């Protein structure tokens, strides 16, 4: 079983990386670009955990380690 965790900055949290990319894109002539936000994707191979147990398990990983809920939101997708 695999899972994909997508982590993005909460609304209202400054995103310096996104800002820098936006500037750089403007510098390259992509002037239409309005806003850029950068997030993370973490792909986990969960081994042979059951489909029932997986969501709670990944949820726990997210709150304990993968995301910092002071500044980040996350979503979990289970694959296969």
């Amino acid at each position, binding site marked *: 079983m695999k899972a994909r965790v997508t982590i993005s900055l909460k609304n209202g949290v400054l995103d*310096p990386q996104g800002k820098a990319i936006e500037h750089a894109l403007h510098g390259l002539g992509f002037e239409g670009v309005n806003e850029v936000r950068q997030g993370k994707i973490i792909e986990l191979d969960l081994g042979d955990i059951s489909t029932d147990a997986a969501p709670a398990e990944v949820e726990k990983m997210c709150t304990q380690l993968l995301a910092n809920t002071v500044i980040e939101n996350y979503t979990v997708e289970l694959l296969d």
Partner: protein
Amino acid sequence: MKAAVIVFPGSNCDRDMKVAIEQSMGHSPAMVWHADTDLPETDLIAIPGGFSYGDYLRCGAIAGNSPIMREVVKKAKVGTPILAVCNGFQVATETGMLPGALLRNANQKFICKDVDLKVAANNERFVGAFETGQTVRFPVAHHDGNFFTDDETLARLEGEGLIAFKYSDEDGNVTDTTNINGSRNNIAGIYNEAGNILGLMPHPERLISDQLGGTDGKTFFDNLINSLS
């Protein structure tokens, strides 16, 4: 007086911290390995700078989950003084011992230089050697020192005098141009509510002699050790 320095895989200012504490305290602090589950009796815990676990995932995140940090958090709750510098500050926010988070510097670059800091609120124990409003000079060396917190917390930090240092100029002017990394309200260091934890991005342990370029760090540690002895 006893002190302990926490060492994570990837810590690299642990020796510098030890040297600074030794210089002011007259003897060595205990060096405590991340995998230990016991903290020695101590009057001060220092969480040093560096790149714990490579700063992978988020700075300080993996260290924040290490066995020893559970003990540190317990001690923090019973009032043991904690000094968290640079990566230590990041670890402290990750564990929730201090509010906020440290984002990538606004200019995206690692910054290493001496900076001027305005002492924003004078917590006797930590910065008793300095007057509120005075400036001190410590070096910074970080890639992720951009302090962020929500408006509400920010107002509380300001209102309750929990901001220790702000990036300023030599004369103590706190402006956008002196904000080296994009931190909210130029925040370089904060206290927790109980006042027993100081987290700061700058490195007082790096300016502890004239030969190294300054002594504000020595003054800082002399006072800290004194006030805890």
